[in-house]
């Protein structure tokens, strides 16, 4: 069946709307974060972004609404694309990018929704009133908004321009129910790794900041009385990056949760994604066995997936090894993410192999 070009066009338009919604959401989150950071700076730098004024809180809420709207457009775009081409909408790099970002935004929204969902569930199940306990409630992850939306917008921008593939049928080798199993797993894991990568970068920055906090606080108090321009203050190794991100109005870093919390969040997302990635590789091997008569052939795509897998396994080991916890483990997970990006961009476009389904010419 030939593709429904009208529907495909609708899909493209929906994607553009999604990108705009995400971009505006990103600015909203950033504004709220910047305001929260000011409060945090005044309030002694607790880990949580404290609520600023009601106005900034409303900006944050608007950003959430925009993200949800963007997500709806995004989902509809993927669905209409699927209907337009009469097959699963993940057959080339353009479609793959749309799916990965959809997963990334979904994970962010799920993390964001955890608390409200629990609250509703508690009401629904009529659980008794909460104890006043020593353990503290979960933090909101709204601070992540700007940092998740930025790569998502970038990814989608790249997908819509450089990687765009006109709607068309699948190549025969991909025409199997395994594309549903293997590729969905790969997409889900990739989306999750993307979010964990963002959190890990924040962790590394915050960790750096926490280590260099003493000198930094000195500059914060003597801080160059208020010009709006960003300041560069050299404080010796370790703090340069943190300082670079310090604007005139207060430590961006202070508004982020404690490094330990970021580390835990990144770990949690990776423990979600790693088994799925493992499954994706195994499902791919089973598929390869049926399609190409061997389950493993060290094709570049297979090899880079394996390297990525080893990278995350190394991260998990590092996290359990004294002396490798924290910064070094986080670096390993970023390297693993880099391998995933090589697997995705470089292998699909530069290195030729059996997996050349990119649809990019």
């Amino acid at each position, binding site marked *: 069946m030939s593709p429904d070009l009208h529907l495909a066009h609708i899909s493209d338009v929906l994607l553009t709307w999604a990108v705009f919604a995400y971009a505006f959401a990103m600015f909203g989150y950033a504004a709220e974060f910047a305001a929260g950071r000011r409060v945090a700076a005044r309030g002694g730098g607790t880990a949580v972004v404290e609520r600023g004024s009601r106005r900034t809180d409303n900006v944050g809420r608007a950003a959430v609404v925009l993200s949800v709207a963007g997500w709806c457009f995004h989902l509809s775009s993927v669905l209409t694309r699927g209907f337009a081409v009469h097959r699963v909408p993940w057959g080339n790099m353009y479609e793959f990018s749309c799916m990965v970002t959809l997963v990334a935004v979904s994970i962010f929204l799920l993390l964001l929704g955890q608390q409200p969902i629990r609250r509703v569930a508690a009401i629904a199940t009529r659980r008794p009133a909460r104890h006043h306990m*020593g353990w503290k409630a979960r933090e909101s992850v709204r601070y992540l908004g700007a940092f998740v939306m930025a790569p998502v917008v970038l990814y989608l921008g790249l997908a819509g321009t450089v990687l765009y593939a006109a709607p068309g049928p699948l190549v025969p080798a991909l*025409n199997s129910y395994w594309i549903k199993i293997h590729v969905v797993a790969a997409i889900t894991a990739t989306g999750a790794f993307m979010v964990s990568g963002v959190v890990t970068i924040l962790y590394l920055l915050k960790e750096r900041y926490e280590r260099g906090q003493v000198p930094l606080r000195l500059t914060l108090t003597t801080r160059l009385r208020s010009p709006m321009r960003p300041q560069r203050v050299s404080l010796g190794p370790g703090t340069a990056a943190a300082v670079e991100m310090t604007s005139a109005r207060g430590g961006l870093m202070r508004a982020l949760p404690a490094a330990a919390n970021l580390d835990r969040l990144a770990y*949690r997302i990776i423990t979600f994604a790693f088994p799925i990635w493992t499954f994706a590789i195994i499902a791919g091997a*089973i598929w390869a066995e049926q399609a190409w008569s061997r389950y493993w*052939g060290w094709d570049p795509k297979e*090899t880079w997936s*394996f390297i990525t897998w080893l990278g995350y396994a190394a991260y998990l080991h590092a996290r359990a090894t004294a002396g490798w916890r924290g910064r070094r483990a986080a670096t390993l997970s970023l390297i693993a993410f880099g391998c995933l990006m090589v697997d995705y961009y470089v292998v699909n476009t530069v*290195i030729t192999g059996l997996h050349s389904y990119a649809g990019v010419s």
Partner: protein
Amino acid sequence: MTQTTEPVVSADQTEKLSTAPEPVVGMPGRGPLRIALRMWRQLTSMRTALLLLALLALAAIPGTVIPQRGLDPVKVDNFLARHPHLGPLMDHLSLFDVFAAPWFAAIYLLLFISLVGCLVPRIRLHAAALRRRPPNAPRHLLRMPASTQWRADAPPEEVAGRTRELLRRAHWRADVRPESGGSLTVAAEKGYLRETGNLVFHIALVVLLVGIALSGLYGYKGTVLVTQGGGFANAREAYDVFAPSRLFSDSQLSPFSFTMQRFNASYDSSNGEPLNFNAYLRYKTSPTAAAKPYDIRVNHPLDVDGAKVFLVGHGYSLLIKVTNKAGQTVYDQATPFLPDDSNFSSHGVVKVPVLGNGQLGLTGFFYPTAGASPFGGITSIFPAAQRPVLSLAAWSGNLGLDSGVPQSVYSLPVANLKNIGVTQLSPGHSWHLKDGATVTFLGVQQWATFQVAHEPGKRTVLVGAVLIIAGLLGSLRVRRRRFWLRAVPAAADDPDRRTVVTAAGLARSDAEGFADELEELASQLGRRTAAQRQSRPASGAEGI
């Protein structure tokens, strides 16, 4: 070895719930034994595992950047031709066969030795941990990372008893232990599955490797070209290419056979992109068995007796007949031509050993749908045989057919031969050569190449893979956690005579969601003690 016989370990604030083996201090033995022991410990340490994992990842990278023999031998030859000095050196370092290189094997074998060496003690430790009771409650529960306190109307025995009952129902391992002063503690632990999963995962990696090794040692792989109507019986000589493994013996070849009734390829009429390939077979599992039909296509191989038959390629065979001057048929065969491009422009040769006074060779180019080539001449413009044209050149002389030197059936060295004419034929047409011979192009058939692969370790690999996932889920999604509750009898000056209940918990590495769980537990306990209160109408306010 290092563990005590004491059934209960004390859990003070400092203790972590890690399942990693403790670093062993103090080494027995001396001299070389001591050094060997130290090396062994070093090899089986987590740090080494980490290093080897990273090293393995690093070592795999050249295999994706440098052309590999296993993937694209032509590219390797081109590379060698272009780099006459560097190439052989790289070849010497196995850089064109990275994944079969000794240094690559060394890394993963070390990794697996390390793995086994670290698994054995961990299995022992875990087996012991499975038998052990939960550790005693720390003295200061309120100093634990998560803790709470409330007052209950029930006496300590009831609180403790109910707590244990509740915990056990939720699959905690829970004990009630008396303390001095009449107070009772409940010590509970849950999530042993985490370490079990972790061990299963690591053992599964070994299982996977064993499976791969089995295939590598006992399997075989072969390819064979079959023309429509032709057949194949599974024997070593029947293959065009046969690659047995190191410990393979011919008795492993299961005695199946098949004939290819029909081959069908369909293409997108607008651009010639392939849509479907189907090879319709009738196969028998043994010479005496009944024939069954099967349709092999991409993603749909035939599975017979552990061997799998895949469709890996296809092309055209041309029915060519040659008669000599006397009108006797000297050649009448379906001759496979090899495709040169995606529209199946193909080449092939015919070698006729006896033709009166010499040998006759034909070199041919075949175009399933002939059209004008942008470079002049003709080419194929569509992969299906819609307008077939066979372009032939005839050669006479000594083809060397009886020289004893093995020859390719797809090429004919023409340097010492004499050209005796060229022509173009469409199906049904004949070409009369000057010496009286006649070449007739009777028609076109399809051939298909099949790969037969037998991998005895495949099941094992699959089992390993499934266990890897199951183990990982246990290892990463289950949290090992401990829970304690202390019920202290009411102080003498408490007018309500209420029991002071303190509860605390500790989760390993990933504490996420643990607070909710504790909260849920405590609230259920609170509810229970509240229910208790209702059965004693005389007592005071609720303790929540």
